[in-house]
């Protein structure tokens, strides 16, 4: 096979795939953040912890109860989503009339509690999680592990389904209307508070779904959420939270950029997304898909 700028194609496409996988998680998480922020005006700092809970949920079900990964992929997001509903009912709903920053501070506190509890229980080191689809295919120019391909395809399907639900269905139109004018939508007889609760639960479930998907790909560790959430915040700033498709595109795009940076200039790979954030803030402060208020 040919070489790309002196990089062997196996390494190049391997990193590209890793970038796509990271991008899949960025997209799922920033999508959830954007949906929640649209309706609740809360930046959900607990998002990382809920992602971590998804991974641990799958791990606990597998190792303690023997429930296989594929069942967890459905059950765990529902469980963590229900937990999110409880959080919204007990804590978040008291803050909607206040400055948005209080929502950030409250969810930050919740994230500390959750991360502390899991660290107390499991320590800071990662727990291994067996691969549900072992093996892979040699495509000639690269080796494609089946599970990694599954992550990319599955998360793309989930993202597009979410986009379809919000932008093309009746339920989604209610949601978009409530994002713009909650008071008016309520006047039409739609139960907005319940919608807010369920939206939060849905966003949290998306985070948990990403966590379950991540469990076999990375190690399951109490720190996995807080490490990721800061990058996802940068992704959200870059994309702007105005558009669902924008979140998806930005997530995948930045994952790919990060993967390519690992190939060409590995030292910068941990900060490349932050650098892009700085450039975007300089040129288009509202974000690539955002509207300046």
């Amino acid at each position, binding site marked *: 096979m040919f070489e790309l700028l002196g990089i062997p194609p196996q390494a190049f496409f391997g990193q590209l795939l890793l970038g796509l996988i990271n991008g899949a998680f960025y997209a799922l998480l920033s999508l959830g953040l954007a949906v929640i922020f649209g309706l609740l005006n809360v930046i959900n700092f607990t998002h990382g912890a809920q992602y971590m809970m998804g991974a641990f949920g799958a791990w606990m079900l597998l190792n303690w109860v023997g429930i296989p990964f594929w069942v967890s992929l459905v059950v765990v997001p529902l469980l963590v989503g229900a937990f999110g509903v409880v959080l919204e009912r007990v804590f978040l709903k008291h803050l909607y009339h206040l400055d948005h920053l209080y929502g950030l501070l409250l969810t930050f506190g919740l994230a500390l509690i959750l991360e502390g509890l899991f660290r107390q229980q499991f320590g800071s080191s990662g727990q291994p999680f067996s691969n549900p689809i072992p093996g892979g295919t040699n495509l000639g120019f690269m080796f494609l592990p089946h599970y990694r391909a599954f992550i990319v395809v599955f998360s793309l399907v989930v993202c597009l389904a979410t986009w379809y639900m919000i932008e093309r269905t009746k339920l989604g139109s209610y949601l978009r209307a409530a994002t713009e004018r909650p008071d008016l939508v309520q006047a039409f007889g739609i139960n907005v508070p319940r919608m807010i609760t369920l939206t939060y639960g849905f966003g949290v479930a998306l985070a948990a779904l990403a966590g379950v998907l991540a469990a076999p790909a990375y190690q399951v560790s109490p720190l996995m959420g807080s490490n990721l959430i800061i990058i996802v915040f940068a992704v959200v700033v870059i994309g702007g939270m105005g558009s669902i498709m924008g979140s998806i595109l930005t997530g995948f795009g930045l994952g790919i950029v990060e993967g390519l940076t690992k190939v060409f200039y590995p030292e910068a790979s941990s*900060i490349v997304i932050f650098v892009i954030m700085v450039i975007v803030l300089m040129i288009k402060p509202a974000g690539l898909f955002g509207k300046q208020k």
Partner: protein
Amino acid sequence: MNASAPASTPPVTAAPHVESGNRGLLLFLGFVALMALAPFVGGYPVFLMKVLCFALFACAFNLLIGYVGLLSFGHAMFFGMSAYVSAHTVKVLGWNPEFGILAGAAVAAVLGLIVGLIAIRRQGIYFAMVTLALSQMVFFFCLQAPFTGGEDGIQSVPRRALFGVIDTKNDLTMFYVVLAIFVICFAIIYRTIHSPFGQVLKAIRENEPRAISLGYQVDRYKLLAFVLSATLAGVAGSTKALVFQLASLTDVTWQMSGEVVLMTLVGGMGTVFGPVVGAAVIIGMQNYLSGLGEWVLVVQGLIFVVVVLLFRRGIVGEIAARFKRGG
């Protein structure tokens, strides 16, 4: 509720206007006298120095959140970066502590200028997210840069003589040096808050469009406040590195940024003394709970939740509100 009408929500600092004029000054002098005597009535100088360093850090942070309404979620970058700079200059280059602290403060000021220029382009929660992301960038820089010592940090920084004369190896002497630094920086903050400049900052916090319409160049005021806050956070970090003879990655993490938010929130955002009280409470708690491992994180999270839900004014803010109602 609506994103397009943020002006209708009450500002983040609902705290009333506290300590005006002489009363505030008297309170402050009382506090300094109390601190100066503390080592003689059983206070450990090392613990007191830690409280003072973090109190200064929290006061610097409070200048932004309390008086400009900007929540920086990345103030650890100034604190930690200056700690590295002062530790490096004192240990490797053999500078005197006063120059080490000045170097740390200068680096923090420059970093604050760069970060400020980028971050003030967004408001509210975006500002918080941008500062958090930038501080994570600084964290990765410190992790990889050759002079920071990676995971080990810069250890056993010597306590050289201050101005070449004052021996700071003695903890008690060092304590008075730290107290002096704290008093100077606190005076700068106090003066800033009560100056015309501070009044403009408060105007921006309360109603930014109005401040713009009155002809103030809001971004310049915000930037200047940001740089000042970063510089003072840098002084706190530099001092801390010299006191504990250590600069490490802990000082640059997002957890550290969260801690200073917590201290200020507990003490009372937008109150002059709140951050000092908050720092004392949180550092005291950490000392007390140090054997409990990860539970400290859980307790801190619980405090966040409880304060946000029930005591948004913080300790000092609540006391001041009681006084106002009573008298």
